[in-house]
């Protein structure tokens, strides 16, 4: 009799503890996880026949030894385009990076202006314009300088 009462008590206690705990868990929102680095354009450099930066009439070919930061081109963050693309300097973009692959495909990345503290540069890879990627200014500044664009320093 005593053993049965003990078992019942244990079962009831388990229910009382577990059910509210599970309810609490289901009500919790997932904690924002650290965003992974996003690959805007995959590498390696050898996969591309030509990489060029274009700004208006200016065009600079990037030699393979200097193209490392562009292939792969990595974004530290991706944000939804909550404002018109012009807010990010992407309508029109101030420059673009053109990739010509060894298989004859072309990839385009549009470059906007720097973010609020100038640590990152906004970029998009068409046709996706719903999200905007943030690439470190230190990656793009020396390359954009070749087409006469000076980014503000952080």
């Amino acid at each position, binding site marked *: 009799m005593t053993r049965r009462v003990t078992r019942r008590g244990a079962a*009831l206690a388990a*229910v*009382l503890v577990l*059910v*509210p705990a599970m*309810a609490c868990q289901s*009500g919790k929102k997932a904690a*924002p996880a*650290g*965003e992974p680095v996003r690959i805007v354009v995959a590498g390696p450099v050898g996969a591309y026949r030509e990489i060029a930066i274009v700004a208006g009439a200016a065009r600079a070919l990037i030699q393979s030894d200097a193209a490392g930061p562009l292939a792969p081109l990595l974004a530290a*963050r991706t*944000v*939804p385009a*909550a*404002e018109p693309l012009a*807010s*990010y300097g992407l309508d029109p973009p101030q420059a673009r990076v053109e990739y010509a692959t060894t298989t004859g495909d072309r990839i385009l990345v549009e470059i906007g202006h720097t*973010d*609020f*503290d100038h640590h*990152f540069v*906004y970029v998009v890879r068409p046709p996706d314009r719903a999200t*905007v990627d*943030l690439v470190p200014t230190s990656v793009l500044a020396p390359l954009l300088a070749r087409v006469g664009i000076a980014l503000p320093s952080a």
Partner: protein
Amino acid sequence: MRRVIVAVVALVVLLGANVVAYRNDRQIDLSAGSRFTLSPETRSLAKAVRSELKVTAFASPKGGVATDARFLLSRYHQVNRRITFSVVDPDAHPTQAARLGITQYATVVATYQGRRVDAADVDELEISTAILRLLRGKTRNACFVTGHGEPSLDDTSPDGMSQLAAALRHNAYEPRAVDLTKGDVPADCAFVAVAGPTDPLVQREVDAINGYASRAGRVFVMATPASNADPNPLLAPWGVRFAGGLVIDPDRSQNLDFDNVIAESFPSANPVTRGVSRLQLPAGGGLLVDAPKDRPGLTVSRLAESSARAFVETRPDIETTFDALDIPGPVLLATASDDSHVEQQATGEKIVRSRVIAVGDAAWATNRYLGNLSNARFLLNAVNWLAEEEQLVATTSRPANDRPLPLTPERQRRVLIVSVGVVPSLIVAAGVAGLSLRRRRRGRGA
């Protein structure tokens, strides 16, 4: 069948309890120092907001700042629905960030009735300071008399008063040095502080301060016995006398340093001591109340006192034991004088109110001690009382994680009595009771 009914009833009760709990969002903050609850000062401040106050926190969604900002700002919103907030990612909203001139993460912008104040960080102190500034509408000057060996407001060493200056800035006061040898107290001073001069003030300065105080002025005097300066010409008109000497408190002092006094007695109901539990007043002198009988409008509040066993040692450089020359305790350590009277003016009758706070010590407000116990709160309460802004009570920093408990001789005695006397006595008593119970049972069994 009965088991099934019992199980179903238990399940229904359980689900019902969960539904009720879900619909009634109640929280209890059991953390040390109520870290997740707004301080009473912040709550009063939030309640004083009369029209829409918008707080925008710019934070990256990565990391905990945005989460913390939402949590903290929702607490303000709960206290007063007029306070609304948003947490904005400046990378995703560059136009909004540019419009408000945001240049770094964790910046908070508060706007109220067309005015704007920025907070440098997303914490309660910074946000409450911003709200305080918005409500007040301007920053007021805290004027400090300098040139007599006072601790510097720019000095970040333990003997400096840079933390005092920072605390004032957080409460929308701008510390400012004034030279009274050449002119009167500037009209834009919220109060004048004489903070620990070691050299005497010249008569011109004393006259300037007394003249200012008598014309509804506000004066904060921190005297120090280790000084050639006599604060009594500043205090005497307000019913207070600095007895000098050195306060020795064998019961309430830091460890065995009997002149490092811990004040735990705050006899008045003056708002200056609201929320003040203990003060550390090292190497201070005593005060005496000496209010003139012909000043009915003058009231002197006894803000802080030592223990009854304390005394003012009048010859501390010779000996530190109580004798006939010393002043017996309890020793008065801080006072607040309020002199209110009605004056006939061209525009009619007007109440003229002068306020003076005196502390028989200046070291308590230095960087070494200001963060200890309730010293910072006392300072800010005093400043707000002087400026007649008790309704905008000081925003003080959250309680520190380490909560020091000064081991005064009085407390050491209590610990000794409990650990050596009470606890062993209870164990022995329990043993004797158990033994007698067992014997009684055996007796019954036989």
